[in-house]
């Protein structure tokens, strides 16, 4: 498939949405594997502390898995702001540009 980058806005936004969905699915899959929680029960609103009962060490480990999977570095002080799946997806999205 060849993408048309010249004028049409529509295909591009679809393209971005696909990437976002894929990113979201990957994050949920990773979290599901790490926490043994069924992926069906994890959504963008799922909170690491309130819903998944992760402690600070669990969070560090999870972030390390994200780093390995997505090839980005998540600084320690960023981790504090990442409270839900949605936060992580948004963070990774911001880093992918």
């Amino acid at each position: 498939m060849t993408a048309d980058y010249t004028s049409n806005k529509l295909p591009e936004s679809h393209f971005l949405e696909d990437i976002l969905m894929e990113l979201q699915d990957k994050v949920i899959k990773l979290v599901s594997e790490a926490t043994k929680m069924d992926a069906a029960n994890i959504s963008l609103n799922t909170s690491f502390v309130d819903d998944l009962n992760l402690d600070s060490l669990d969070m560090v480990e999870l972030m390390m898995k994200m780093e390995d999977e997505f090839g980005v570095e998540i600084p320690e002080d960023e981790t504090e702001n990442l409270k839900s799946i949605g936060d992580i997806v948004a963070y990774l999205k911001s880093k992918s540009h």
Partner: protein
Amino acid sequence: MIATYSDLKDKIILVTGAARGIGKSIALALSAQGAHVVFNYRGDESKAMSLKEELEKVGGKATGLKFDVTDYESMTKAIDEFTKSVGPISGLVNNAGVSKDTLLLRLKPDEISSIIDTNLKGAMMVTQALSRNFLKAENVSIVHMSSIVGLMGNPSQAAYAASKAGLIGFSKSVAKELASRNLRSNVICPGFIQTDMTDALNEKAKEEYSKSIPLGRFGTSEEVANLTCFLLSRASSYLTGEVIKIDGGLYI
């Protein structure tokens, strides 16, 4: 007599201060078990090369990393480079240490700093620098080389004893913090051990010291190395947060 722990074969273990004394005996004992011994060195490349050769002759692999335990930046850089290219380190022996015997009256602030920085802060920084790596490793075991004087105190060794006692609180905290990851942290407190340090004592002093030791002699660095191998191995899998004296009964 050296016991063999088969799980130490190919285990990657960092030993600080392995150039001589107890640290060197530990490195040699680990090499004899077929472990991959990683040691740090400060300046002399040729000495590091000959230590590497000496260790590899005994068995296993050996790698020298150039860093000082008081220099966090070079330490993290060297460790990160190593773990990225070779793999996670799953054993650590915090052994690097200095001593300077002085009466409290004459103890200077910079002498206090030097002793605390190497013996206590150094061990804390190496452990910290490896903590991320430890989360990726399996069956991690950390051994901190404290001293019997950290438990009983000693005249003219106030700063040294304080640094060695500090390691105990540090080790116990690490043991609790990372136990859920199957990481263990223990402390060894050697008594009088034959090393360059004690060889410098005169015969009469050595005789006097030996009288106060129930087993009637100084220990050898190989005996300390044996205990270290045991603590690094899964043979001690239910042992963590412990402080073990190896002193011939000196402090009973």
